[in-house]
């Protein structure tokens, strides 16, 4: 988390993500179905990128690959100049948990854990000690205005509230990169705006953000738009 320290500011232009000729296909006995083809993409630290495209064009797949939740079928992926496509699962987990926070369209909170416990979970995996953990969870609850809700279970919250928790959980470990897959897709526009403002603020504080969105308004929060169609990046 603190690995980059103060040099971060000086290296704003350094490439955080570098995808070279990424392909992804699913094959069954009969055919190979390409979901992504010839993807070349560079994202620099501090950018706020929006991925757009029709349903089924491969946006989620791309985001998952960037987030190391899924492996490409072909191509090279460098994260901070390190070759992700050559890494062991252990190393991947390590990299993933240190640098990346994920937000899903359908929130994906652990149903059996309270808001507080859901927030705490990434810190547990990062072996943050108990005192610091408590401090950070409290601080995050405060920042997201959810102190009163901390002992509720996900099914006791509205969709917007659940998504807030999901984002809070994504940022609590202070990731360098937040990946958000249609974070406002299931929300009213009012709630959606709140979420987007939050992401914007995080970006201004230095977090790199890649979001998938269908809305031009939301895309406008970012500083670059990438359009996918049938697995290709539209030029």
């Amino acid at each position, binding site marked *: 988390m603190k690995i980059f320290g103060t040099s971060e500011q000086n290296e704003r232009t350094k490439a955080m993500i570098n995808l070279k000729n990424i392909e992804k296909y699913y094959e069954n006995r009969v055919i190979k179905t390409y979901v992504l083809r010839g993807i070349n993409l560079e994202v620099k630290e501090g950018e706020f990128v929006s991925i757009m495209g029709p349903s089924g064009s491969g946006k989620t797949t791309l985001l998952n690959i960037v987030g190391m939740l899924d492996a490409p079928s072909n191509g090279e992926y460098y994260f901070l100049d390190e070759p992700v496509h050559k890494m062991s699962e252990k190393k991947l*987990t*390590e990299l993933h948990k240190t640098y990346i926070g994920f937000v899903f369209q359908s929130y*994906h909170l*652990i149903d*059996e854990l309270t808001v507080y*416990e859901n927030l705490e979970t990434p810190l547990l995996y990062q072996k943050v000690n108990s005192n610091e953990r408590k401090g950070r969870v409290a601080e995050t609850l405060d920042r997201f205005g959810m102190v009163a809700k901390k002992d509720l279970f996900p099914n006791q919250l509205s969709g917007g509230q659940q998504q807030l928790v999901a984002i809070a959980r994504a940022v609590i470990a202070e990731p360098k990169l937040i990946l958000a897959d249609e974070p406002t897709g299931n929300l009213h526009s009012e709630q959606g705006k709140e979420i987007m403002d939050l992401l914007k603020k995080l970006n201004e504080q230095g977090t790199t953000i890649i979001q998938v969105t269908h809305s031009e308004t939301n895309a406008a929060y970012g500083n670059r738009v990438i359009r996918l169609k049938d697995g290709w990046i539209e030029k």
Partner: protein
Amino acid sequence: MFSNYVRVFYRNLRKQKVYSFINILGLSVGLAVFILVLTYFNFNLSFDSYHKDPERIYLVTSENGSLDGARQRTAYTFLPVANMLVQKFPEIANATVVRQYFRNVVSYNDKKFYERGILFTDENFLKIFNYPVVAGDKQEPLSHPNSAVLTESAAKRYFGNQDPIGKLLKADFSSSGLIVTAVVGDCPPNSVNKFDMVVSLPEGFNNDWGVAGSTYTFLKLEPGADALALESKFHSFVDKRVPVLRDSKIELSLFPLRDIHLKSMDINSGFNITSSMQFYLILAIAIGLLIVVSLNFMILSTSRYTNRAKEVGIRKVAGAARKDLVLQYIGESVALALMALPLALMLFELIRPAFIAAVGGGVELNLMNDPAALFIVLAVDLFVGFVSGIYPAFYLSSFQPASIIRVAKPKGRGLLSLRKVLVVSQFALTFVMIAATLLLMKQLSMMSKVYLGYNRDNIITIPCTFEMAKKFDVLEKELKTNPKIVMVAEAHILPFSWGRQEKMRLEGTGKDNSESVFSYPCGYNFIDILNIKMARGRSFSRQFNDEKSIIISEEAAKHFRLDNPIGKKIILDDRGEVRTIVGVAENFHFPHVVFKKSPAVIYFLPSQPFYVYVKTAGPPDDRTVSFVRAKWNKVAPSLPFDYFLLENQFQEQLRTSTRSLEVFEFISIISELIAALGLFALASFTAEKRTKEIGVRKALGASSGNITYLLISEFLLIVLVADLIALPFAYYLSEYLVNIAWIYKTDVNISLFLITAAFSIVAALSAICVQAMKSAGANPVEALRYE
């Protein structure tokens, strides 16, 4: 982190109350039965371990050839053997002689009892065996003739709360009476040679080579002495130089005290022994149950896990490494298994009395003072938890998080098909267990009805002592006044007791040809009351003087190669008598039904009865019994009256010797129930998974009946597949069991397996019907809204 896991574990348990409960309950039932069998196993292994250095104590056995070629080994030797051995071989530290009498009347004032198995022995008995003296002479209570040592409960029986020491008991074998010199604690239940009373042997008795019969010789070896080496010295020295042994070709050998209980089935003795085969069968079926229960536990565990795929994905996204997840899920499984342990201990306490009754009593089952057993139970429990957790843990944690998160409800195919395999194994194993149980039941029922060459019906059997001999004629006359009483006989034995062998040969052959043959002494009417049929010649009768007569079986005639046996003479070497064959009996079988048919002879030996048989016309009623009792008390007031029916006693003995059957039935049924529970859980989870499909089908017009059929047929198929897989194993096992264990064999036929299959289908149907009907009745709109 740990508390995070615990919370998720606990909340999931609560959310799936029914499954969690079934899961824990199933395992605890299996564990409870396993604990029972384990403690039973340990109890049987613990026989005579309470003596000091028990592994240094040996029984001297004697072996000789018998008529059908097999060596016959008995636990009986001659009285002087103990003294002779201890003087000749320095590696023997101590030796004792134990003579066991069959039945005697002992009394104190008006208290009068039959004592079964009084031990006549010397002062070394209490030095070799550990029966601590609790009152009286602690040093040598048996050093004087006519001293008696009682157990605490025997002392209580005669003397109540009075001090027994120095009191004089009357006994039918001693004119001077017995002086109680000491009281010892009751024999622990794990003793092969239990007693109520020990009496000192008359002086000079143990130099008498002439007294054969129920004499045991026990040796205690010096530390480090080699029993095998000692035994070979017996063969080269003792057997050849002692005339009695040499002439009758008896060889002495040693048998470890600790092995008597489980390993001496082929040694003729009066010890408390168990057939090790039955014992291992019980162990096998308990392990079978344990496997079924573990499979059940796995099935339910994997079911619980299918709903956890999403959690796995989220945890991975949150940074969980694979090993974190594996640990978490194995940990949960182990924790769940541990929760079954206290319940298992409670169930163990609960079913222990029933189990003890089922194995015939006389058994002490304790887990708490048996650290090894406790440890094994804990280890098994942890192992089941661990193994149940391992596959789901690795399976779930292997998912790419993307695929889990994308498909909001994961397929869980792998787990489902694993579950099917587990359910099939569970039912297959249960099939084998049920089939084996049915086979044993069939075998037992066959053995209880098989005709053994004599008739046991309607015979009132009254134990007595030799004293009856003088009164028999009067008793018979008195009893015959009742028209319901058909016949009265003097008997030495019960026709289904193990039987005794004696050395004998045809007149005109040398002592070298002498062989051991089953031989039964009897009194008047014995042959007729049992309706043993004569093939040739006659049975014993008052019209003749039969004191020198003998009757042989057709089998014996064949073995002696006698075409024309009547009038031929047989020499009974042990008795030093020559007897004339007066009849040939159709084959009869007195040893236990499980033994092979052998040649046998019956010789006339009046006035030494141990029983009086009274045969009634039709089943004896209370009035007839009262009549017999009244006459008995009138004719023989010194003998307590006690009776049983011969046929009942036969069935009882058969049951005792096949007592594992009840345990078998019990364990197999539990196993079937648990297998059904597993199927129930599988059905519920599948139904849950197919809620949407069922909804769509119903929306398209399928009836509840259609849906029920759809769900049931799938599971019935699983059970049928299991049955088919199990069939060859069950068949092979049944053939094997029948062939190794019995002489009179029941036939292994298809009906056995059809019944077993029907059993499993009924169990399966009842388990899944409830669930199938519930799903079928569900409202389709509700079902679809779920997704």
